[in-house]
């Protein structure tokens, strides 16, 4: 009754109603979690731009102030990683394109073309996903080093090529390994997308006399563009960040063909202790390519998630 007797009276009660304890609790929790997740990132970026003294004397979360600010860490990290960046991208980009393309082709063959034994083949792909990497490391190393030493076979080609050095040949086995291990998961991702496409696309093209390869090239491939975005981001991140295969096939961080994930643990570590500024700079730089890929493919990623699930 109170408050509603006149038009002028301001109904305070109705405002308070919206601020019940549940909602306040929710927001506090959300803000806490945001802080919890973002604090390490913030700390990392701030530390990357601090001098060693500032790192020791200020709170990690604080931004670097006047004298404490430096770009030296970044330059040092960039120098330490520049070769590794090239190696990583030289290996990861073809490996990603290869596994995504082959995965899409395999998915097309498994869902939109009719042939006997499809189910058995699909099961093999599924097994491929669940094969633990650790179980294949030793055979894999033996295969590429002793049974089929591809790297030493193609070294002369790399010497002749511009920009490349002979040691880059060592990245090729790693590239092929990543393609092989990426195909199953890519296939399954594309398969779910292709199953959602109307079968009349393929049937109409068949009636028009298009061959299986033409249907893939002219219809399925262009239609699956959004899904390519999703799988490409996923696969690139996987391959770029992968450590175990790289560690097995490329022996160590001191080799010139080492990829970013191999170099990263060594940057900023020395006998005199750990240089946090350099480490954080290196970590930030190492993460940049995946961030750039996400931003570049964001639109297709969203569209692909929407349509492909």
């Amino acid at each position, binding site marked *: 009754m109170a408050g509603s007797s006149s038009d002028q009276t301001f109904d305070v009660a109705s405002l308070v109603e919206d601020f019940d304890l549940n909602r306040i609790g929710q927001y506090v929790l959300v803000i806490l979690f945001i802080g919890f997740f973002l604090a390490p990132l913030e700390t990392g970026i701030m530390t990357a731009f601090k001098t060693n003294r500032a790192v020791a004397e200020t709170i990690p979360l604080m931004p670097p102030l006047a004298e404490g600010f430096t770009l030296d860490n970044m330059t040092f990290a960039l120098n330490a990683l520049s070769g590794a960046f090239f190696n990583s991208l030289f290996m990861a980009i073809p490996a990603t394109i290869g596994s995504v393309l082959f995965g899409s082709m395999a998915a097309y063959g498994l869902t939109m073309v009719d042939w006997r034994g499809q189910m058995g083949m699909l099961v093999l792909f599924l097994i491929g996903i669940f094969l633990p990497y650790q179980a294949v490391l030793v055979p894999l190393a033996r295969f590429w080093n002793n049974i089929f030493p591809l790297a030493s076979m193609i070294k002369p080609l790399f010497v002749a090529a511009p920009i490349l050095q002979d040691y880059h040949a060592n990245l090729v086995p790693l590239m092929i390994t990543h393609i092989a291990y990426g195909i199953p998961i890519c296939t399954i991702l594309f398969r779910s997308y292709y199953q959602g496409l109307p079968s009349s*696309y393929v049937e109409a093209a068949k009636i028009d006399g298009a061959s299986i390869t033409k249907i893939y090239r002219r219809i399925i491939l262009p239609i699956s563009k959004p899904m390519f975005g999703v799988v490409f981001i996923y696969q690139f991140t996987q391959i770029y960040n992968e450590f175990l295969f790289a560690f097995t096939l490329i022996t160590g961080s001191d080799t010139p063909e080492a990829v970013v994930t191999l170099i990263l643990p060594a940057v900023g570590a020395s006998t005199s202790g750990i240089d946090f500024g350099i480490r954080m700079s290196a970590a930030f730089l190492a993460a940049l390519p995946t961030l750039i890929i996400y931003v570049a493919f964001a639109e297709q990623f969203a569209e692909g998630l929407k349509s492909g699930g």
Partner: protein
Amino acid sequence: MGRIEISNLTKRFGDTTAVEDLSLDIPDSEFLVLVGPSGCGKSTTLRCIAGLETATEGSIYIGGEHMNYRVPQNRDIAMVFQDYALYPHMTVRENVRFGLEEEPGYTSEERDARVEEIAELLSISDLLDRRPGELSGGQQQRVALGRAIVRDPEVFLMDEPLSNLDAKLRAEMRTELQQLQHRFDVTTVYVTHNQTEAMTMSDRIAVMNDGTLQQVGEPLELYHAPANRFVAGFIGEPAMNFVEGTNENGTFVGTYIEYPFDEPIRENVGGVEDVVLGVRPEDINLRRFPEDGSDTLADHEFEMTVSVVEPHGDQNVIHLRHPNDAAGDELLHAVTSGTTVVDAGTDVVVSIDPGAVHVFETATGDALHNRRLETELEVRNV
């Protein structure tokens, strides 16, 4: 040229039989509608003709040539799909042209010219550079037709092509499809579950149920002389009335009504005991039952109560129940002219002319007796 012969076609998927022993002869340039409820095997039959499914048994001939082992492309057919199957990433021009790309005997310029020509014909010329996503349902439908026509096939196969359109557009496209078919003079097999489309568009209708062919014939033949209870119930809207009962010495005895058969019906029904009485809603006549109950009922008249009235404007559908039926289940429905107004709850006298009655055998569903038509002319010239 485009004559289709299907002989003893059977299609099984694992243990389920989709189509069983279907034989059908479709003369050149006929418009045949394959109609039936969902899952009756009509689409499977169409896909077998198209070559998208292989027949388990039986043969398919188009233009006298055996088709079973031919790929779809070499069957000289074109198909329109229910969802149109237009490629979203191509323009209308590219979509229509796609069907022509694998066709031998065209130069690139001739292909482009042919696309323009077809677009002109379907009045979609101004849409040629748009994508299917930017078109309305009716326009997409036209493009899908264009893609079928562009190859100049001997046979059109259409799988429920109008079911995604709204009612008004559907009626328009029905006429247009018919005109197009006449113009190209192409044998057409048209699959639908919509009996109105079947009645209005076809030269002949083939009704299917549970994978078997029930009856093939001209629309009015199916309407007035259905071969069995299924066809009688499927063709016609609102559906035919069926009353189950027994034949006792030439009189139909149901739970609530008794209907004495006249001589021609008796002859056809013979000694069959369990029968179903069928009568079309428009053949049921109603008159008001006098309040004082003074009316006497003749042989083919019954007293009934109106339970529900559905006004359609041009006609009213009157649902009737028997006064003695406590549960109030509908016994019959009748169609009256739109200007005849009856209120629910009114008692009426229902009269059914023996000339309009169908009788079916309960066990098999086969028609024992169909309604009488004075002459062939009554159907053709009324």
